[in-house]
């Protein structure tokens, strides 16, 4: 049992933190709200030079061959500074499945572009039902000779408007069992028939509606096997939930620190407000929930890194993140008093992102249900020792 952040991990963390503090101060975060691109292309290029996009990509494809724990630590730093950029979309939602399921040609075609050129990718997955279930996927993908014709609408697709490529989840076969018949395609957003519109979210974080009208894609664009896309989507959801939880953990930690410092300075009735139990106890409970989240993320990430991913931990981390991030932002603003509610303080910038992050790779209900399934199927130690209860 070892909670040590190794030296290399610590260095990565430090360099990421310093980079984002310098390159993306909070005023930049504010500015980017009115920038339609919703990210800073110059900073993105600098990140390529530092190898950040290649962090998890194998050396053979121009990456750094980092492990999943490092990626989680990096996402914590991204969240800490609420850096608006297509990193999560590119790496968590696309690079990881490309590494795991891409054929050699696909990997050679796509991964170096991400690692060395900063290509932007995104996953077009959510549709109107918007519950991250297999039955949500209704976009039709019908074979037409050597090609497939895509028709349908995807919503809340992150950074589709600036993406070089996207993974699109479509339905290649109909049937009674929703997970069957889903296929993932790598699609160029500049293809004919793709229409992209920015959705005006409260965070202005580059969410798009992507409409596919008779979009033609080649068979070679299929990631993994035809009709077997749910497997990949499920793995994206598992790892994506964990990485989003890492991002939220970092964000919640920063939001907490901002709030804590404020309660030490701000006085009411001649005492710092942090000296009132009503305030102090809230902060203490926040600390506990932050620590809970942090270690659930680390444990889950470590499991992935040693090849023993845990659905229980992935879902626990995301469900906890959904609760904690919301709670800390909400009460963080509250504890600031009225000033916290203005756009002048940083705390609100964190809360702008709460609702979107909660649903990335699964809302709370979905992950609680996933945990319940694990509990239901697991054989607890006491049954193993004693046999079935009498």
């Amino acid at each position, binding site marked *: 049992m070892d909670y040590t952040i190794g030296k290399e991990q610590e260095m990565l963390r430090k360099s990421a933190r310093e980079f984002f503090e310098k390159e993306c101060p909070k005023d930049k975060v504010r500015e980017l709200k009115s920038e339609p691109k919703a990210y800073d292309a110059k900073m993105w290029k600098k990140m390529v030079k530092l190898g950040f996009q290649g962090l998890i990509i194998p050396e053979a494809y121009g990456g750094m061959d980092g492990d999943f724990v490092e990626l989680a630590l990096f996402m914590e730093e991204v969240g800490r500074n609420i850096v608006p950029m297509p990193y999560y979309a590119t790496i968590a939602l696309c690079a990881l499945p490309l590494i795991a399921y891409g054929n050699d040609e696909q990997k050679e075609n796509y991964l170096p572009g991400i690692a060395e050129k900063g290509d932007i990718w995104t996953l077009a997955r*959510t549709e109107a039902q*918007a*519950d991250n279930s297999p039955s949500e996927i209704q976009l039709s993908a019908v074979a037409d000779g050597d090609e497939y014709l895509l028709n349908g609408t995807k*919503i*809340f697709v992150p950074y589709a408007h600036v993406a070089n490529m996207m993974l699109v989840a479509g339905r290649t076969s109909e049937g009674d069992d929703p997970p069957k018949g889903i296929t993932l395609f790598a699609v160029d957003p500049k293809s004919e028939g793709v229409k992209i519109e920015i*959705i*005006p*979210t*409260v*965070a*202005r974080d580059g*969410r798009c*509606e992507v409409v596919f009208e008779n979009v033609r894609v080649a068979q070679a664009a299929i990631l993994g096997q035809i009709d077997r896309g749910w497997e990949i989507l499920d793995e994206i959801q598992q790892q994506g939930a964990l990485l989003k939880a890492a991002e939220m953990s970092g964000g919640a930690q920063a939001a907490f620190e901002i709030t804590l410092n404020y309660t030490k300075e701000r*006085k*009411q*009735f001649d005492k710092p407000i942090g000296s*009132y*139990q*009503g*305030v102090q106890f809230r902060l203490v409970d926040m600390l506990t929930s932050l620590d809970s989240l942090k270690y659930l993320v680390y444990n889950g990430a470590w499991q992935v890194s040693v090849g023993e991913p845990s659905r229980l931990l992935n879902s626990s981390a995301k469900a906890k993140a959904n609760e904690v991030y*919301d709670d800390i932002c*909400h009460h963080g*603003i*509250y504890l600031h*008093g*009225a000033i*916290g*509610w*203005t*756009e*002048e*303080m940083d*705390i*609100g*910038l964190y*809360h*702008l992102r709460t*609702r*979107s992050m909660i*649903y990335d790779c699964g*809302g*709370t*209900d979905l992950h609680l249900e996933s945990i319940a399934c694990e509990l239901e199927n697991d054989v607890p130690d006491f049954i193993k020792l004693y046999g079935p209860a009498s």
Partner: protein
Amino acid sequence: MEFKYGEKEEKLRTEIREFVKAEMPPHFIGKQFEDETSAEGWAFSMSMSKKLAEKGWLTMSWPEEFGGMGASHWERVVFSEEASYWGIPGLGMGISGTAWVGPSLMLFGTREQQEKYIPPIAAGEPDGIWCTGYSEPDAGSDMAAMQTTAIRDGDEYVINGQKVWTSCAHWARWLWLACRTNPDAPKKHQGLSLIIVDMQSEGLTVRPLENYVGGHVFNELFFKDLRVPVENLVGVENAGWSQLMTALSFERGTAVGTTAAARRMLDELVIYTKATGQIKQPQVRQKLAELAIDIQAARLMANEAVWKTVQGQTVIHEPSRDKANGDILQEKLGRIGSDIIGVYSQMDLGLEDNRWSRLKGAFEHLYHYNIGFAIAAGTTDTQRNIVGQFGLQLPRAY
């Protein structure tokens, strides 16, 4: 014991609903803070304000001599319920004038002040729009710590200092200002006065305080040697604290409205989840049921406070109880509603009608604005302190 309204009140309720059907856009959902951000929103509010004044409802509880209808407490309750349930605009932004400036002037103002300032309020005119200057950067919950001064200089007061969290200042004609007329008073509760300030005065700067979701409700006011005639003093110089407390007690009595607004939001959720099928999920059913209980209980408590007033009993901690409870209820409602709407709850608050928003954005709005509400007019914790100290007779804990 009787848990229903009288015939008079139910008749009023019917009239209001007819008014709503005739004058309001169909399926309109009100917001917790009125739209003071956009010029269109403000214009709609002002047009409704005028219509409400014509009906006599804007100041229905005022005595007839001041343009009111002398409505009973229970008529006010029903009006407040309906106005909040249907989201009738034109009430919230004028609230300073109708809720405490007018009534305070009736109690403490001179005849001249009454004649000058009260009629435009009652008429719902732009000249009857007031904002209120109490909070300062270092005087929030601890209001008596305020430091803005108004120093007598001949026939004028010279005002210097700063106010903050002044809602509606960017639209108001007048400012209802609490400030320090005797900076040397031995205790901080002493030496305060209430003064009327023309928003068009020289020496006044209004700086908007946009909130983090892009709305504009609050402002900062800066006073630099601003001069007002002494006749703008309300009541007795240096005895403003008790007038201020009286005015504040008018402000606190609003749980009826927030509860009715919550009821509307719950009704919307029920219909929404029926349409989406989510109402079949047991965890959704339980959440809706819990909200129904809390809303009904909040309504009963709000009415209890009114009833005590009607009985001539002193209402001390009840409004604070109801404010704190309402804050918690709205937080819960905002969160549950946003969870039900799911991924669609991340929309920009300013956009009522687009193909991605659900329920006209009412839940995104509540989700982000309920924090502002919990901070405004005495934070939740401040209310708890009041209930502890005065309702439970516990030692002061702050």
